[in-house]
């Protein structure tokens, strides 16, 4: 399978729709709108890449996710702020112990999953914010190994959580209750089917396949659920010093990757071969 780039949203600068200093998370909703977590703001682009709205968060924001009801969950330090699609703050979940640096948010069966990079775990909360269990912290032996400082995961249609474990060069599968089911991926220095470098893949998104990004030789790749490499989405277009590039996939299989150096969201479309 092959992909071609169709758009580059945002960019570095001070203009409307541009990002100032950082681009840490992206999310795509059912309608194809793109949400970007940059600096201390959430920037909303429509499916055509035009700027719709932008609002500020109270702290620098590390991740963003859109729930089924359209609420926008933003991950920050020690808290998750929940906005509606117009940008009005609905709720704030604060937890100094269980929420450190929230670098990924996902949803499963009405529960909210928050990736806590400080505790190296994925925390599962119910919809009212009550803590249920950890995922990934107690996997043998040392849990999620994240020298990059980012926990990222995706949830597939069956409710299985696919979490990136970069220190082990794997993407691991967990049940929402925290049981480790298996993993895909292995280390390889030169073969593109493996994950290279010290700690890859850094970020992962799941829909019908597993989509992940890597650093140091930055690239985005697609794997099937049984671990076969299906495509290398792109590698040359990213800035060489990119690290922790957030990735998202929409219903049509378009892949969105946040370039952390050029501060742009690249959009790739699969082409029929």
């Amino acid at each position, binding site marked *: 399978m092959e992909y071609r780039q169709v758009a580059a949203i945002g960019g570095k600068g001070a203009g409307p729709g541009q990002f100032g200093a950082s681009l840490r998370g992206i999310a795509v909703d059912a309608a194809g709108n793109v949400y970007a977590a940059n600096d201390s703001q959430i920037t909303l682009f429509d499916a055509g890449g035009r700027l719709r709205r932008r609002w500020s968060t109270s702290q620098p924001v590390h991740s963003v996710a859109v729930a089924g009801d359209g609420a926008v969950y933003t991950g920050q330090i020690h808290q998750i702020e929940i906005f509606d699609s117009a940008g009005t703050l609905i709720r704030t979940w604060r937890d100094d112990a269980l929420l450190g640096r929230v670098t990924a948010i996902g949803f499963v069966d009405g529960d909210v999953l928050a990736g806590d990079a400080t505790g190296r775990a994925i925390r599962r909360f119910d919809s009212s914010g009550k803590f249920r269990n950890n995922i990934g912290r107690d996997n043998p032996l040392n849990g999620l*190994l994240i*020298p990059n400082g980012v926990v990222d995961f995706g949830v597939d249609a069956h409710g299985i959580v696919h979490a990136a474990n970069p220190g082990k060069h794997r993407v691991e599968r967990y049940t929402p209750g925290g049981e480790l089911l298996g993993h895909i991926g292995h280390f390889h220095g030169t073969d593109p089917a493996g994950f290279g470098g010290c700690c890859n893949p850094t970020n992962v998104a799941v829909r019908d396949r597993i989509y992940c990004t890597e650093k140091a030789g930055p690239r985005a790749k697609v794997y099937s659920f049984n671990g076969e490499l299906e495509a290398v989405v792109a590698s040359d277009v990213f800035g060489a010093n990119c690290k922790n590039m957030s990735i998202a996939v929409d219903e049509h299989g378009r892949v969105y990757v946040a370039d952390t150096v050029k501060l742009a969201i690249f959009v790739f479309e699969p082409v029929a071969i």
Partner: protein
Amino acid sequence: MSANTARTSACATWLFLLVTAAGLAQSIPYQRPVDTAPQEKSIGGGYRTPAVQKPLPRSSWLQLLDVGVLAAAMGISSWLVLKRRSRKALVALAIGSVAYFGFYREGCVCPIGSIQNVALALTDPRYSIPMVVTATFFLPLVMAVFVGRAFCGGVCALGAIQELVLLKPVKVPPRLDRALGLLKYAYLGLALFFVLKPAGGDFLICRFDPFVDFFRRTGPPHMLLIGGAFLLAGMFIGRPYCRYLCPYGGLLAWCTRLARRGVTITPNKELDCGLCVDACPYGAIEKMRAVRRNCLYCARCYAACPRDRKLVQLS
């Protein structure tokens, strides 16, 4: 000896008290945006992050020892030459100096090079030198004001190594000797000019030290060749670097003019045999009289003198 040594020792005590609080070499902080490395608590299993080693510079004790050894060696040198008049003992001292100041300390910090440091410290407000370097610069000069170039005799490592290779001295005609001797002052001027240049000091004396690469046992090929050439020439022409190039020797020569004591050939005791004139390789005896500013304290004149040494008075 002088106010300087007293001051040096007072300051040395002060410095020592400061130093007993364990010296640490400063490291330059290297800022990374987010500290994400796993820490002890995260790693668990009773792991303790080891401290990063920070090897310390040469302890201040040893630096003070260097100054002490320098002062003691100069004292011994002047005693050996002026009182004991023993050439053998002086050669032993020369070997000791080559071993300590040469191979052990690798020729650094030496009073010759310290001219540049002192010149820079006197003129550049941003540059300062530690007290041991100040002491290293001034002690031989103070010694010279009183007894002449005791430093040159068996204490300076560069001089000692040339002293030890001198086999068959060839006399340099006095006019040529005097002309070549002026090169010292030219080199001194050049070295000062380069070190005081506003574009940042260029330390010529260190760069073109012919013997330091032997002491370090490694060096650029051209300097090793030059060093070898000096030693080769030094087998026949006595101490060419000391007499014609050493900028510190120029300063010592000036100070020696004021010295009261030194090698003297007493007029009413000498035999007029001229053996000492032949023995001196450095042109320090002219017309049966010692030219103190050229005397490099080698004691060859005493060794050659047929008179019972007890009868040759020190005036």
